[in-house]
């Protein structure tokens, strides 16, 4: 009997439940699909550990954010359910009046919740399986792997996780429902509807003040955020966040009253057709639902920002992969790390014995490294070849060294000051300005250029050119080679050749250096004579073998040249990094795996978070608007009776739905533009990524998903009105 009632209720309220149900199904499907990403690794028989670990890392990140996602979906279920329950107070009142005991009513609701939950879980999981198969094709595409044989993947972990999460959500929901029904009093249940008729109208003057305050607070938040530059999560960041949330809240609190007051005073608009009615409908809805609207707006903002930033970052990872993998491998010696201990006598005297000993060890190590380097005249290739001539012979086709010195005399700040050039915001300028200009010998540079078939630099006896791979320093590089520029380095005056080159100097995912000077070899010789050592040395290697095999040989070679200490070996490394000959090795293969791995991780995270937040918010709005339409049916009936035709009524409905969906989106877009603009300045622009494409992708995602919810809401509302008023009135 109870079951019959429950099932009939669900069938009958499909219009109310529909959007909620579909959203739940999407939620479950996406939840499963993204949590099954780790399981996809079996598809590709990933042998090398680098790729497998990328999958693990992606899986871990997705798992971590799944907690957030589960919370969001949990709140959606709780909210939607509570909302639908509250709307049915009168029905429950009737059951109680007819003598059903409260436990019976709770049982009905429990049955309904369980049924909807079970069905959506099953449908969602089935959809999730399908989605995860599709996702594996996307993954294959990201890794540039041909899927030779297709395998159906089922991830038991993801399945259990999904099952567990949603079971928990539904149990909590069921408890919540039962408790809230128990708390109701019969009189409240029965008079629920008539009391709903009272709605709040705010004083227009208070609304006006509130609205102005909201705009000020939001503007303040934007200014704070721009000041903070999103470079660190300091006090400024949290203040901006708090202000933005408060401003959003205040905005929706005061919006209706303010808009109403303004429009009421523009008689031309207010007294046109159903404008008054439409305005009041929206105002009463916004006034009662301002809390959820604010939350929706903030979540939308989050969704749009995460998605567009994520897509921007993936662009950065894939953007310069061609230039970054031009050599098979790069071995870098970060000689600047070889400073040893402190040499300040006062400081040394103030130290305790243990620290002084430590300083002594550091000094000894530094001296050893220096001696090693001097013994091979800073030639990394010679050092490695000596360590294992057989391996070297087997592996290396060409190996070219590039030594980069840092000028003690000329800083970037000098050029920036001379030409008023900025490399970004103030903080970035401050960090770049004191750095000494990077110097490279022309012959070493030109050898690389010839190897890769790119333009060489002719600096003659006393000229200089600039090499630049960074967008951030592009204008600085241009400035440095302006016509007739001269600089003095190591006592020689050099004249600009006016040339900027774009030669990749290393194997990397991100180019870190920009605006390096190419100077005649004689300058470098002079510097060496004055006792300068390279700041950084890079050995760019071309293999004789293919890249996969070469990477293995390189690992062996490095292990021979610089065996790992016991400490380092314990963490699974075979080679011990030193300031010289090799601090870091990075191969083209690693760059590709890393960037496709990062690409996969970030784009999946962005999609996952962006999509779930988007559907959750759109679903909340849709449910609210649909129930609003049901509640307003008597009003639409009156309108039809006093002679409004179908077109007028549906136009009013359309305006209501549009405003209700687009106002939170509009404010969220404002927030997003500000935040993404700041992120773009702080991060994306540095990585040479334009925000235009990510912004476009975000617009498409939001347009499609949000737009679909908007359309469904409008047509479903229309259907509700048409079914209730009949053909005669709105035919």
């Amino acid at each position, binding site marked *: 009997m109870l079951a019959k009632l429950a099932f009939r209720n669900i069938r009958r309220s499909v219009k109310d439940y529909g959007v909620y149900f579909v959203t739940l199904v999407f939620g479950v499907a996406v939840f499963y699909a993204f949590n099954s990403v780790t399981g996809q690794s079996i598809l590709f028989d990933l042998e090398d550990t680098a790729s497998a670990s990328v999958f693990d890392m992606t899986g871990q990140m997705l798992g971590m954010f799944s907690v957030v996602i589960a919370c969001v979906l949990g709140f959606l279920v709780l909210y939607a359910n509570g909302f639908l329950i509250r709307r049915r107070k009168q029905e429950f009142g009737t059951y109680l009046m007819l003598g059903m005991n409260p436990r019976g009513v709770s049982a009905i609701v429990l049955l309904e919740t369980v049924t909807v939950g079970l069905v959506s879980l099953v449908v969602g999981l089935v959809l999730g399986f399908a989605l995860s198969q599709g996702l594996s094709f996307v993954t294959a595409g990201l890794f540039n792997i041909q899927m030779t044989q297709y395998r159906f993947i089922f991830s038991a972990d993801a399945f259990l996780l999904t099952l567990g999460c949603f079971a928990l959500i539904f149990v909590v929901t069921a408890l919540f429902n039962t408790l809230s029904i128990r708390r109701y009093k019969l009189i409240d249940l029965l008079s629920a509807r008539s009391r709903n008729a009272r709605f709040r109208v705010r004083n227009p003057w208070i609304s006006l003040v509130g609205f102005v305050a909201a705009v000020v607070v939001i503007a303040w938040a934007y200014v704070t955020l721009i000041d903070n530059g999103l470079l660190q999560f300091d006090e400024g960041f949290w203040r901006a966040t708090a202000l933005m949330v408060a401003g959003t809240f205040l905005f929706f609190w005061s919006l209706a009253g303010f808009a109403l007051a303004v429009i009421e005073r523009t008689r031309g608009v207010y007294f046109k057709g*159903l404008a008054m*009615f439409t305005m009041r409908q929206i105002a009463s809805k916004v006034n009662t639902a301002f809390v959820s609207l604010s939350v929706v707006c903030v979540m939308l903002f989050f969704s749009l920002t995460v998605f567009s930033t994520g897509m921007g970052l993936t662009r950065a990872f894939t953007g310069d992969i061609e230039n970054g993998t031009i050599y098979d491998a790069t071995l870098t010696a970060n000689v600047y790390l070889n400073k040893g201990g402190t040499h300040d006598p006062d400081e040394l005297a103030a130290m305790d014995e243990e620290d002084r000993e430590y300083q002594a060890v550091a000094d000894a190590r530094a001296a050893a490294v220096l001696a090693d380097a001097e013994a091979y005249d800073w030639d990394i290739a010679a050092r490695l070849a000596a360590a294992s001539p057989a391996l070297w012979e087997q592996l290396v086709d060409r190996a070219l060294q590039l030594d980069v010195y840092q000028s003690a005399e000329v800083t970037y700040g000098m050029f920036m000051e001379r030409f008023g050039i900025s490399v970004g915001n103030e903080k970035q300028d401050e960090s770049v300005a004191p750095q000494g200009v990077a110097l490279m010998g022309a012959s070493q540079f030109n050898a690389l250029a010839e190897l890769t078939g790119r333009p060489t630099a002719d600096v003659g006896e006393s000229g200089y050119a600039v090499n630049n791979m960074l967008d951030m320093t592009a204008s600085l590089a241009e400035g440095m080679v302006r016509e007739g520029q001269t600089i003095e380095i190591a006592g020689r005056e050099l004249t600009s050749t006016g040339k900027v080159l774009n030669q990749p100097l290393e194997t990397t995912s991100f180019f870190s250096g920009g605006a390096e000077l190419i100077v005649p070899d004689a300058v470098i010789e002079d510097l060496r004579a004055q006792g300068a050592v390279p700041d950084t040395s890079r050995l760019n290697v071309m293999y004789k073998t293919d890249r996969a095999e070469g990477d293995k040989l390189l690992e062996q070679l490095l292990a021979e040249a610089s065996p790992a200490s016991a400490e380092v070996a314990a963490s699974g490394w075979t080679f011990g990094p030193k300031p010289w000959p090799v601090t870091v090795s990075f191969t083209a293969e690693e760059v590709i795996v890393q960037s496709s791995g990062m690409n996969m991780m970030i784009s999946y995270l962005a999609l996952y978070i962006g999509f779930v937040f988007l559907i959750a918010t759109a679903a909340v709005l849709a449910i609210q608007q649909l129930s609003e339409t049901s509640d307003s049916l008597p*009003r639409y009936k009156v309108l*039809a*009776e006093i002679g*409004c035709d*179908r*077109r007028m009524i549906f136009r009013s409905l359309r305006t209501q739905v549009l405003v209700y969906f687009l106002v939170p989106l509009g404010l969220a877009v404002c927030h997003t533009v500000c935040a993404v603009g700041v992120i773009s300045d702080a991060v994306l622009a540095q990585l040479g990524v334009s925000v235009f494409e990510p912004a476009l992708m975000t617009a498409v995602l939001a347009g499609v998903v949000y737009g679909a919810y908007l359309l469904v809401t409008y047509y479903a509302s229309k259907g509700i009105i048409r079914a209730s008023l009949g053909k*005669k009135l709105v035919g």
Partner: protein
Amino acid sequence: MTEVYATPAAPVCAPSAGGSRPILSVRQMEKVYGSKDSVTKAVRDISFDVMPGEFVGIMGPSGSGKTTLLNCVATIDTVTSGHILVDGRDITGLRSRALAKFRRDDLGFIFQDSNLLDTLTGFENIALALTVKGEPTGQVKPKVERIAATLGVADVLEKYPYQMSGGQKQRIAAARAMVADPKLVLADEPTGALDSRSAAVMLETLEMMNASLGATIMMVTHDSYAASFANRILFIKDGAVFNEIRKGDTSRKDFFNRIMEVVTFLGGDAADAR
């Protein structure tokens, strides 16, 4: 003692003063509900006319078909056969867009439960009837204020329906019905939900609308006291016009007594009479 007699199918188009055209003519109207198996004839065969400036009451016991008749005239419901002419135009054949236009241009409604929009103030409720008609925006405010002053609701214009008494709501509804200057005002049990004092005020309002503002009113009621404010009563029984009485020059009290006699004869809701 009035003679009570049944009039089969009322004579069509009683000639009346000035020889002007009737504002409303109902011709052999029939309304059947239900499917083939179970047919309910709500209205069997009704014909009558309402002349401009008349205040017609429609009385009859529950289930007599009086509300069906009103709904058909209001174009909220459709007739099964027969015709309804308003100001010479047959409205039974109109499409829904044209019907909506007819309702907003030619009709005014007053319902038992006032049917004001709860989200709108009194002023806005009245104004809505004008704005949906496309009234020039400059005219809206003065027209609303004028009718509100006439009907004595100027002081509740800024209130919301939930802040008003039942009587105030009904008079706002009356103002909404009147403000667009309709050809015909339809009132369905306008005093049904009111206490006796408010009911009297409301009825006087209707009477005044009819007498001073020249409104043509057709009111459905089962309350003889309310009916006594009309100048002609049509009694409906089992879906047909059963009798018709006119107030003429008699006092309202006499008219009331004559109504009571018919009602008693009909065996109807005598208990409701005051």
